[in-house]
């Protein structure tokens, strides 16, 4: 719970803004605690145990906006920042679309999201140190693992309170716990850096140190001995974490501000077919214990499950109040980005998909930037496993992969059944009909 003194501070900040002439105002405070420990070669390398808080607010006068944030919560500072914001707002341009939402979530009537585990604050430092140490010691006992970049265990718990001049005031707590490791295998120019991190809202949902270590080791060792391949066009299988990267690109291209600024190849495509028929994406903020679940968004707008793509048709953009007004639509409760954004699984197992591939790449990792939302062009460094006649032949490294997101969505051949919602964006293994792999 946000301490009463902070709640009072938010109310006092809103009252001052109103007194000084703000037409509308929003203020928020967050109070969080973080603990993290990094283990390197069996010793504690770093241990962080601290708490911090910050206040942010936005003032609107005559449809002109000014915003601010501070971690200096002395009233003198806040008062001078509110005064300066009032003055700054007067210098901005009047924008008919600016302003608070028209309707807000009812904090009394929200589904039980179960995103706060009150046992997380009480996990002892020893338990956390032991869990991280265990992951590393399992990995270092494997002769195929050359080195550890360190294992780490973290917990975060805290509250955020949002209030505005239209009478909305509400708060909710969240917790997060994570454990993982980054490893090195191979040697010389064939070194491989890979690892795995797991995270969960509830301690009991976190993978065991054994499971995390096994996953990290597999990811590192399977890439040792990677070869460059000839430049060619082949089908590409995306592992779930790679599918998630692709879905993240899609989310960027349907975010409201990219749409109204026409900084997206999907601007103006609402209702159109943008992908193959069996491609269906939901954004569901109400999944119990979901990594991206939330009762309301960053503006206090209600959240609800939203169909994003249904049978290949683009059903909704991700909108906050401003973007919605610009586009003459209604907010979808996405003032803080996606919630739990996931691609519906298909029927096949990933093994069946790999087994039916004649020649192609199983993509396991990408390196670098290389996505252009305006054109949909993707070009990135790539790692993976080369497949011939349904068998993994050898690892592939130091190649690049290129394609166009718009074309790729229409060239999805298979969607597997292996989804797991460990991150706010998730999806199963998929196969794209053809992409360019550039090597020698």
């Amino acid at each position, binding site marked *: 719970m946000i301490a009463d003194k902070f709640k009072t501070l938010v109310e006092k900040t809103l009252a001052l803004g109103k007194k000084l002439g703000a037409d509308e105002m929003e203020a928020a405070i967050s109070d969080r605690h973080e603990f993290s420990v990094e283990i390197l070669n069996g010793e504690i390398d770093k241990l962080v145990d601290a708490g911090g808080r910050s206040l942010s607010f936005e003032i609107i006068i005559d449809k002109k906006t000014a915003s601010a944030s*501070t*971690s200096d919560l002395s009233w003198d500072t806040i008062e001078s920042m509110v005064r*300066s*914001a009032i003055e700054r707002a007067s210098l*901005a341009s009047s924008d008919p679309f600016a302003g608070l939402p028209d309707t807000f979530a009812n904090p009394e009537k929200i589904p039980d999201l179960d995103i706060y585990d009150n046992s997380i604050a009480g996990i002892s430092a020893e338990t956390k140190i032991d869990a991280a140490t265990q992951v590393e010691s399992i990995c270092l006992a494997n002769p195929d693992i050359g080195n550890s970049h360190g294992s780490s265990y973290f917990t975060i718990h805290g509250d955020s309170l949002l209030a505005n001049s239209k009478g909305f005031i509400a708060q909710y707590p969240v917790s997060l716990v994570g454990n993982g490791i980054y490893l090195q295998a191979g040697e010389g120019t064939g070194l491989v850096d890979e690892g795995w991190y797991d995270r969960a809202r509830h301690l009991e949902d976190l993978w065991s140190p054994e499971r995390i270590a096994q996953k990290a080791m597999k990811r590192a060792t399977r890439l040792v001995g990677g070869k460059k391949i000839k430049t060619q066009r082949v089908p590409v299988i995306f592992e779930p974490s790679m599918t998630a990267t692709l879905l993240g690109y899609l989310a960027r291209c349907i975010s409201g501000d990219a749409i109204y*600024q026409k900084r997206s190849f999907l601007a103006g495509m609402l209702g159109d077919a943008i992908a193959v028929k069996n491609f269906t994406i939901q954004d569901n903020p109400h999944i119990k214990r979901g990594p991206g679940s939330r009762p309301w968004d960053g503006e206090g707008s209600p959240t609800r499950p939203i169909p994003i793509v249904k049978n290949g048709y683009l059903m909704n953009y991700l909108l906050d109040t401003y973007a919605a007004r610009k586009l003459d639509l209604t907010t979808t409760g996405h003032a803080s980005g996606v919630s739990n954004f996931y691609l519906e699984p298909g029927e096949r197992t990933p093994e069946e998909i790999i087994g039916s591939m004649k020649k192609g790449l199983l993509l396991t990792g990408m390196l*670098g930037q*290389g996505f252009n939302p305006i054109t949909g*062009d993707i070009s990135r460094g790539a790692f993976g496993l080369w497949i011939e006649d349904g068998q993994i032949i050898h690892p592939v490294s130091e190649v*690049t992969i290129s394609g166009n997101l718009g074309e790729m969505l229409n060239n999805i051949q298979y969607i597997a059944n292996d989804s797991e919602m460990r991150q706010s964006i998730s999806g199963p293994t998929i196969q794209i009909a053809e992409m360019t792999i550039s090597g020698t």
Partner: protein
Amino acid sequence: MSKIIKLSNFPESLQELGIEELQRILDAALASGGDFADIYVEYRYAQSVYLEEGLIKETTEHRRLGAGIRVIHGDTSGFAYTNNLDTKSLLDAARTASAIVRMQAGNYSANLSSSFPKTTYYDFKKPGFLAPLKDKMILVRRAEAAAHEYDTRIEKVQVSLADSMQWTLIANSEGIFTGDARPQMRLSASTIAVDGEQRHSGHGSGGGRIGITHFEKKHTPEMIAREAAEEAITLINAIDAKAGMQPIVLSSKHSGVMIHEAVGHPLEGDSHWKKTAVLAPYWQKMVASPLVTIIDDPGMQGYRGSINIDDEGCPARRVTLIDKGRFTGHLHDRISAKKLNAAPNGHGRRDGYHSLPVPRMTNTFLKPGEADEESIIKSVKNGFYAHSYQGGMVQNSGKFTFSINLGWLIEDGRLTSPVKNATLIGHNLDILKQIEMVGQDIDWFLGTCGKEGQSIAVTAGTPTLKITGMTVGGQ
């Protein structure tokens, strides 16, 4: 242009933390033992103006106040931070940071002596936080107008002007009491050009540890906007890259990204004592062509990556990382210097009071050579010319990529067609040896570098370079 950094110019909440108070905190941090403790106090003040679709859509003001306290015991660092600078909060943080120490009692007593930097690498004339908002809005409007003026096909323009002032106080158990006052300012323009079905974006930016006067002559809003507009317009006629291994010319414009990724990160000291760096076994050996000398220099007047002292209070020094092809230097923070038996060289940087220092770059560059730009391009029969970048990335294994916004096809020694959507990938042990020609020109990429979740301001510079062969990703 030098000015002494004085505590009396700091915000009041920092001035109130006198030597005696800081000594008390350090005493508490080492009360149960430990080898070393430091306290890092930060006040950061940042403002921005943002223009989109012809409107000054928003202005922002951010303040950050806090203190981080670290205790080092053996190989372990304990760390805690707080937003409150009152004695009780600081003592609590000191005790939390010291929880890593399992000894009974220490007998440490701090004795601080003041050693603030005597000169500064920053331009303090009219720093951003003292400039009137109206003047900043004029700069933003000028950039907007210049972008539209460049070509009628420029449909959308975004401009932002962001400035910050960061004051730090650093005290440690070895008696150091110092601090820094760092200005930072950046004007960025982003455009979209539309021609029929073609839509492309372009970017330009300028700035550094400078005041608002920098934009009067040196790098005007018009120059920055035209760069953004030119890039977007050029991309209208761009073709896809030809995929595969080919000779590469890196332009001086932004190719410092390559130096930053392929050499800078791999020579940060932490990956060397952890022995995860692929270059670790090559100390004092040839790792690059003899034409290659690479330096990290925190002392470049007004540059975005410059620092007087690092975030551990150590004076920042110029380091020759590669000398005529030989690996001669690391970038060190306190811990990596100690682990590798070297002198600290002032490269322990932090994102803020809430972060632990790690070895980082400042202004990293490849020293210009003899070749002229034209002859470098002429020497390539068919290949790829990299002009501007989205950014780059490197792994400890030495594999690195950089993503090209705009490149050119080289045919018969001439730049023929603009190229979009390309990524270059290579391994630093291979590519550094393949630098065949080094130009006389040098230009700088203004970057924000991310490592372990911490973002810091850097620059990277290079002359025009020719690389024998590198994999280009395309269609």
